Each structure stands twice: as C-alpha cells, then as structure tokens.
C-alpha cells in the first residue's frame, strides 16, 4: 500500500493526515513534496498526523528528519501526532523520539503551536 496525504486547516495549523507506508520511493516523495509545498505557501505550522502510518523504513525516518529540519530552517514548526506503536518504537531506538515534538491529542497539539 502506498502513502496518501491530505491536508486541513485548524486554527492556523496545517494538519497533514498521512496513511500507508513512508518508505523509500513513493511514500518518502509524497511526504517531502507535501511539506515543501506547504512551506512554499507560507504554511509553517505543520502537524503530521501519523495515526494511519503503519510502516516506516530508514528512508522514511530520514524524510521525517528532513521535513523537521527544513521547516525549522524556514522559521516554521513541524510536530508529530498519533504515532503508531511501530513508528513510536522506531523513533525510540533511533533516539529521535525526544528530538521530535510528539503529541497524542489533536486539540492539544494545535494549541501548542506558537500563535
């Protein structure tokens, strides 16, 4: 199953609902293009909802790091929401869990962005 991405706006925050697999190839490209497109439009408060992402490989992890860094370098913020156990465990063993700002509920996550 490839990855799907859709975006919605909540109180000035762009929530990106992702589903499927973030892996080398299509999945990573979809994530990269989505984040770059948002940043180019000035939408710099980005919440990646990974609740339906059931698989991620090292390329996908790299793409998350790239998205985080790219947003930060452009004065934006990128946070993660609703990690599945698999993704949570992967971020733990790669020591990235504490690097990312990880949220568990959408309303709280939206409020956490700088106004």
């Amino acid at each position, binding site marked *: 199953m490839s990855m799907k991405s859709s975006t919605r706006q909540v109180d000035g925050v762009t929530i990106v609902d992702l589903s499927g697999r973030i892996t*080398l*190839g299509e999945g990573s490209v979809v994530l990269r293009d989505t984040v770059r497109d948002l940043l180019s439009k000035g939408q710099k408060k980005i919440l990646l909802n990974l609740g339906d992402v059931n698989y991620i*490989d*090292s*390329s996908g992890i*790299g*793409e998350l790091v*790239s998205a985080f860094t790219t947003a930060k370098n452009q004065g934006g913020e990128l946070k993660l929401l609703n990690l599945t156990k698999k993704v949570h465990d992967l971020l733990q063993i790669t*020591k990235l869990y504490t*690097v990312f700002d990880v949220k568990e509920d959408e309303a709280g996550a939206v409020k956490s962005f700088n106004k």
Partner: protein
Amino acid sequence: MCADRVSYTLDSTLETVNNAEETASRMATEAGFDEEEVMKIAMAVREAAVNAVLHGNAYDPNKKVTLAFECTAGDLVIVIRDQGKGLDASKIPDPLAPDNLMKTSGRGIFLIRSFMDVVEIHPSQTGTELKMIKHVHGKPADSKEAPQ
C-alpha cells in the same frame, strides 16, 4: 514450517526491495515467528535490499542482487549479496552519535543490527555479502536447556 533453502536472483530495482521484504515476511511467518518478529525480520531484509540495490549496485541494470533464506532447526538464516564495490562497515558512522542524529540517512545497518540476532558483513572486490540470523524464540540453534 518453511522450505529448507530458497534463493532468488533479483534486478537492481526498487521493486526488488519490496519483493525482498514481502518474501522475508512470508518466510519468517512460515518459520514460526510471531507478528512482531516477522515485522522486524522483514524490515531488516528491506534495509539490506535497499543497501544492495542503491549503495551496492547503484541501480545498475547489469548487476544483480541474490537473496537466500535457509531454515534450520532453530534459526532463520538470510544472506543477501550485491555486486558493488564492497561495503566497509568500519566507515559507517554511528547514527546515534549526537553529530549524526539529524542526518537524513545512515540508519539502515543500525536497524538491521537492532532487529536481527547475528549480523555479519563480508565485503569483497566483487560485492558485499550480508548474513543475518534470527533465532527462533530467541535461542541459538545449538543452545541446550539447563538440566532439571
């Protein structure tokens, strides 16, 4: 129970990566691993296939990847070979080092080592052989129960 030994010769394409992962998942399931272990084995094989296709063979259509699975009494042994320049494992940076944490690549071998019980990397001038072993129920094949 899985077949004793199966091997595949694959093209240096992205499709090979996906096929290797799917095959590993099937073989690990047949070998009796639980769902979580199957996921780890399949991911290790996926990462190994990515290394072979991208970094080893560099998508060269003239170079092949071979993938072999062997079931023994207590182990699933997986060997993947490429025809690249040979991977020098000593030069792979530690992805957990603070300076490397935010790098966008370099975590494949680390994940393989995290998910498999034994990982051996054998580089040569004709390519790299990566051997991975997963013990069924976490026990080496030659382990013996302590006397009662």
